[in-house]
């Protein structure tokens, strides 16, 4: 694709330095071009764009004009814009067994762009040096290297930013205290990068420490976690409580949640010290009012649409998620990062079951 060169340039620049208005000037033509390209190369996507008679492909005047498809479509259809031979990696979402999973097909370019994007973001939070890394998971989640679950992909992606990556858990999801002990001894005075999925950090790290009545002390630790709050919301744990427990049990003060999805790997939104998620220069979010898809004002709740210039091999550059969020502000977070910053408020509640047929009640 022609746009790749421009995207590479973008990825080489600092991810949070451009003001929103300047960023939009750069990514709008890229996203417009990608819309056109994907509608030519992915027949299913092309039919959707064709069916949406309202837009003509050439006049996108703002990011909000770029058409979006629901992220769930990747669970129902194989949406891919390259030939089978060009696919180097397939990512799947980690749904429960009863749910359908998303399938995302990456070619070499997209995989490379994702890696670079992630690097640009993570370096901004972790610094340029690779830190010793502790993974709150067990090593078998990345066994099969041809097909990754979101969990495996997340771990592998972030492993590039650490060194001496060490898995804390065994396959029964228990802390291996020998490993923990020797790791902490080895890196007593160094900053440590700790990564895990939010629920697993809570359940198998913090709660386990709690049960053993054990506190550890990693004041130089940086905890990065992701994967959604749903399970924790069910047990009434919010970000504040989570952070307090992290601090109490481990002494870690630097905790960064991030929002991202397997459909847009690489474009992640990381929480700053103020607790807000930030949009990097190569991706953006729009909050839409579900009632008419109009763009919500800052501070107004709506559905989150995610835009990213990374997906070249599949039409995932503009997706409507089923997550609710609000834009907190633009360009003016006191952490210094430019662009939009936002909060995620959870998933859209499920629809009430109605109708004559019981099949919907499952």
């Amino acid at each position, binding site marked *: 694709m022609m746009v790749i060169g421009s995207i590479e340039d973008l990825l080489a620049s600092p991810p949070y330095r451009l003001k929103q208005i300047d960023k939009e000037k750069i990514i709008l033509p890229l996203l417009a071009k990608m819309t056109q390209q994907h509608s030519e190369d992915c027949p299913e996507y092309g039919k959707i764009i064709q069916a949406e*008679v309202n837009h003509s492909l050439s006049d996108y005047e703002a990011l909000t004009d770029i058409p979006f498809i629901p992220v769930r479509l990747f669970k129902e259809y194989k949406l891919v814009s390259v030939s089978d031979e060009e696919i180097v990696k397939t990512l799947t979402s980690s749904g429960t067994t009863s749910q359908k999973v998303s399938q995302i097909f990456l070619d070499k370019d997209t995989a490379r762009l994702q890696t670079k994007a992630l690097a640009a973001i993570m370096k901004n939070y972790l610094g340029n040096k690779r830190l010793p890394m502790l993974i709150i998971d067990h090593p078998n989640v990345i066994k099969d290297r041809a097909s990754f679950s979101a969990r495996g992909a997340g771990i592998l992606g972030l492993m590039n930013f650490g060194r001496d990556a060490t898995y804390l858990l065994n396959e029964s999801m228990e802390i291996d205290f020998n490993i923990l002990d020797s790791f902490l001894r080895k890196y007593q005075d160094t900053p440590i990068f700790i990564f895990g999925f939010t629920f697993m950090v809570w359940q198998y790290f913090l709660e386990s420490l709690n049960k053993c009545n054990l506190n550890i002390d990693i004041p130089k630790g940086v905890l990065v976690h992701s994967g959604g709050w749903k399970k924790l919301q069910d047990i009434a744990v919010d970000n504040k409580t989570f952070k307090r427990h992290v601090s109490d049990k481990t002494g870690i003060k630097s905790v960064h949640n991030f929002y991202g999805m397997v459909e847009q790997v690489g474009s992640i939104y990381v929480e700053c010290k103020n607790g807000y998620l930030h949009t990097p220069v190569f991706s953006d979010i729009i909050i839409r009012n579900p009632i*008419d898809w109009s763009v919500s004002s800052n501070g107004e709740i709506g559905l989150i649409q995610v835009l990213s210039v990374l997906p070249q091999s599949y039409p995932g550059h503009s997706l409507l998620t*089923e997550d609710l969020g609000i834009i907190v502000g633009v360009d003016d977070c006191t952490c210094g990062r430019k662009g939009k910053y936002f909060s995620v408020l959870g998933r*859209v*509640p499920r*629809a009430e079951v109605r109708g*004559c047929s*019981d099949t919907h*009640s499952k």
Partner: protein
Amino acid sequence: MNRKLSVVLPSGGQLTEYFFSQSLLSVANDLSIEFISQLSKEILRSPEFRPYPELMAMGFWMRKHHIEEILNKHISESGDKIRLPRGVVFHIAPSNVDTIFVYSWLLSMLMGNINIVRLSSKGGIQINLLLKLLNNLLKKSKYKDIASRQLLITYERDSKVTSYLSAHCDTRVIWGGDDTVNTIRKFPIPPAATDLVFPDKFSISLIGVSKFENLDENSKIKLVKSFINDAFWFGQMACSSPRLILWLGNSELIEETKKDFWARVDDLLDVDFAKISTADIVNKLVTSHSLAINSNINIIKTKNNLVNRINLYSLEKMDTNLHCGGGLFYEFSIEQLGDMIPFVSRKIQTIGYFGVMEEEIKQFITEHTPKGIDRFVPIGEALDFSPIWDGYNFLYEFTRTVDVKS
């Protein structure tokens, strides 16, 4: 026989051999008529029921006058043919539209049958109100012959109970759509018994545009309100809810009428009535895009997402299973009724019509012998219950005919 089984009604009722062996009441027995009309009176005068129009409609349907009208129409004395009850009727109620089985149960009672009804365990407010009222009525000694012949039960999904009841009935009524029908059908019924099944259905509104064009302002408003009622009750998920609109007439007039019609829907559709959730809206987007992938369509820009519209280019390849309800309308134009024939499968249930003469419909049916369509009703009556449903005449299905020749 099963600890998970509980009898909801009548209080003190028990599932015993005796229950199945009782004598049968007669077809159109006076006691049932009186019981149903008493039920009607109490529903209509109780303030508790007033917030639920579907229950009020049910109470209205049960009026003595209306019941007698139904009987006169369908069960008239015809010389040497005498109707008798089937015997024991086993009803499996759906879990979602949880009041529809009441109609078939009462008609079966009216025909003199012994009834056992499996209620969904997740009953809503409406059904609980109704059960409370029924309980009080069935306690009265004058209705003891009715009470002893009805059993409303719930049980967790348990194949033993379903198997036992299936083996002991003369007619089995399976509501709840394709999956329930397929599951329950695996349990054998006695060789002479019959099944009435209610699988998934798809319904349509048919609008003749030249007649619409000529309506005065008030009549247009009335028609659009009727359409809104048909479409938005039960979140457009009842089997009779219209999901496809067939526009009948010349194409220029159709385009004009559509503009007028949908602008009126936007005007008259109340947000609180429509009850469209964010999840519904996302579902509609997924359905629209899935449909775009599977067939040639246009997604029409609407004022807001209470109503979403899809123009079909062909009826033949349309996947009716994709439809998710919540105010999503497929649209297709036809020049004459016969144009819908390629699309009409056994799955098509109701056609709510406007601007077409009854004679034209009858002619269409006899001329084309459609493979589906169970009922044509004026727009606004799609959700009204009728003793003829999904191709069955309940009064016939709940009875058998004895032929007495001289």
